[in-house]
């Protein structure tokens, strides 16, 4: 069974958010980049499947400049078998997904499962998985919380929806997007780090897919005015505020 995990590079969750180039670009200096947290859950699930079954091969792919190399290496050290990087920083999800699909066509590689995270924590899109599924005609199963493969080769899945869960069975090939708890993220072992050095890592030229959207600029939200403290002995004041200002009672 072949699994592809698409990973994105995002700033660390505690990194300061600031912009350069008139707001067009994120200020990267001094910032630690990580594998997008949702993609970590996806990668961990692929590793769990690899541990459970004998026949699993996991490829990680990223559409990004060489800034993503260390993250792909980390994925190899965690246990992925191969890494592929398509050498372009994509402008939007359509471009990223399109490049991945073009690479699949060109290389002739076929995957039974393609994982992505539910969304990236910087772009907040959640579109790459849907685009790939649509372009390949694969089953699309967004926001997956639990996944098992049954003895007869079906996907046994729990999806998260607003206020609940859906239990379903699906066929492969499928594109799955991961939510938290799909699997426990893993850390690379010393042995893994050593082994990663000799694993296949290929850098591919982009096919030249045009984005459908372009980021014009970013800006920070307006600051909230200073917090007003309410005396706990006079909680009626807060009730007044709930009524008069916030108007929820």
């Amino acid at each position: 069974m072949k699994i592809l995990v698409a990973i994105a590079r995002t700033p660390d969750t505690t990194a300061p958010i600031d912009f350069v180039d008139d707001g067009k670009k994120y200020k990267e200096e001094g910032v630690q980049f990580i594998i997008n947290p949702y993609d970590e859950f996806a990668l961990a699930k692929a590793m769990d499947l690899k541990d459970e079954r004998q026949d699993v091969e996991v490829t990680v792919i990223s559409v990004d400049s060489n800034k993503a190399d260390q993250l792909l290496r980390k994925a190899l050290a965690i246990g992925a078998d191969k890494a592929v990087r398509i050498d372009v920083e994509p402008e939007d999800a359509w471009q990223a997904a399109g490049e991945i699909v073009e690479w699949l066509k060109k290389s002739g590689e076929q995957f039974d499962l393609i994982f992505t995270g539910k969304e990236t924590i910087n772009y907040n899109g959640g579109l790459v998985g849907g685009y790939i599924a649509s372009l390949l005609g694969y089953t699309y199963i967004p926001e997956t919380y639990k996944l098992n493969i049954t003895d007869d080769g079906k996907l046994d899945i729990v999806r998260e929806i607003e206020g609940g869960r859906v239990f379903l069975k699906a066929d492969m090939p499928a594109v799955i997007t991961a939510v938290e708890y799909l699997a426990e993220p893993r850390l690379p072992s010393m042995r893994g780090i050593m082994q990663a050095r000799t694993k296949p890592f290929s850098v591919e030229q982009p096919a030249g897919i045009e984005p459908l959207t372009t980021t014009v600029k970013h800006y920070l939200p307006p600051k909230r005015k200073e917090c007003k403290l309410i005396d706990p002995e006079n909680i009626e004041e807060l009730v007044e505020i709930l009524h008069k200002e916030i108007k929820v009672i």
Partner: protein
Amino acid sequence: MAVIVYTEHEDGKVKRSSYELTAYASELAKQFNAGPVVAVTFGNVADSELAALGKVGAEKVINFQGEGTDQVDPKLFFDNLKTLLDDTSPKFVVFGANNSGRALAPLVSAHLKYGLVPGVVELPREENGKLIFKKNAYSGKAFADYQVNTDGAVIMLMRNSFDYELGEGTAQVEVRQISGDRAYNIERVEKATGKVPLTEADVVVSGGRGMKGPENWHLLEELAEELGAALACSKPVSDMGWRPHTEHVGQTGLTIRPTLYIAVGISGAIQHLAGVSGSRYIIAINKDPEAPIFKACDYGVVADLFEVVPKLTKAIREFKEKQAGG
């Protein structure tokens, strides 16, 4: 030409967020002369409920009914939407930034080859003949302006982003039978009914590790009850299994934008704030005056939550009784 808006209903009622989406779609139609607003909905719901979307400008509501329409299935739903898209060539297709939006909007965008903007928070503006949408970015820590490079656009609108009023009007309702294959076989659904869903709620009461344990949650349930609020929690609370993961808000949970967010026993870590900073008002209850949440809220109470929460619940109840009485 048309503007298509994807609407939803729950417990027999059209969701409030769907009114907001339809009102937004109507404003787009007006601003860009983009033709009638056609709402689409799946599953059984009374015609009169759907016709009421006319109050926010829907001209027509197409209601797909039949087996498999009560839960989103990306393939089945999209295949049925596709006919409608091809018949109407919409300039805009509007979804909510929620589960169903994420399941369907990318398929629509790929089919129409229209740029898709997820997490939109405002009406667009036009610059040099291009549409520019303001969207949520960096999980609520920033905004971004996205330019759509195509003639039409697919939009996923964040909840509570667009103010609207109910007007007059009745939409024409057309029922269609759903047809086609499914992406998967749904075996069962577990869902809380009769409660305000977190992403729909105007008021959210949220608890953190300061609550000490699940046995204390009745304090928040009682407060939520008085406010008609939904419940949420911080990540450690769902990690420890005190509350279900579906209530977890923040960077790796849900992003919500209620009118009022009440954080109880939550320190206000940056990853937590990411998911709630779009709230119009934030009230914090925490015993530590140095907690970062007090840098991010509008009103704060520095106190032991076990004393102040019951007091607040009681004060609200008494206030409401007084209002009702006089």
